[in-house]
């Protein structure tokens, strides 16, 4: 999985490419660690993401909880497979998906 981070003042944009699964979720966790200080807007672009597993959901939940305390988070460009995962798991109600 490729992770591209762009910081613009208080807005952090993260683009993901590939698969967010057991093998790659720790990479996203590391990319987020310490990067959310002072961030009031977090955007996770899933345009290049093929799919995610529960290991990825765990990281998204952690990020959402952090951002609930300090600003907002949204997830963009979600493909049909990933949207179904969000719906089945109730994440569609937890995340802001655009």
């Amino acid at each position, binding site marked *: 999985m490729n992770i591209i981070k762009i910081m613009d003042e208080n807005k952090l944009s993260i683009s993901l490419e590939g698969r967010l699964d057991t093998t790659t979720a720790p990479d996203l966790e590391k990319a987020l660690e310490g990067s959310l200080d002072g961030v009031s807007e977090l955007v996770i672009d899933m345009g290049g993401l093929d*799919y995610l597993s*529960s290991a990825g959901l765990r990281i998204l939940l952690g990020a959402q909880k952090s951002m609930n305390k300090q600003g907002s988070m949204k997830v963009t460009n979600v493909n049909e497979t990933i949207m179904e*995962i969000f719906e089945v*798991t109730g994440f569609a109600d*937890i995340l802001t998906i655009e």
Partner: protein
Amino acid sequence: MEELTVDATVENIMQVTAFVDEQLEALDCPLKAQTQIDIAIDELFGNIAHYAYHPEVGAATVRVEVIEEPLSVVVTFIDDGIPYDPLARREPDVGLSAEEREIGGLGIFMVKKTMDEISYEYRDGKNILRIRKRLERL
């Protein structure tokens, strides 16, 4: 029937996925079904890698079979680790807020929702977990 036996480690999930995908591509499996099976491998083989032999490392076998009527692919995960029935786990409450949510059990829940059948048995000292996904003819 094709079979692959490797050490049950997180590092080997990619190899197992590639092995199963190869069989699925030969079957002209629709991409969506393949993606759902790949996710199931991540959840199920990942579970074995994390828990079956912890803290040791042991082997796991992944078997791919095709059955007709209805055309389905069956993937079986076999390990000789500690007996563990993932289906016995209480289902997560998917209606809770972010603050109340727990991730435990979510992976197996997703697999149950996306596969047509899932079964577990413990036989001859082995955990045998089987998933079946129906393939629509294109």
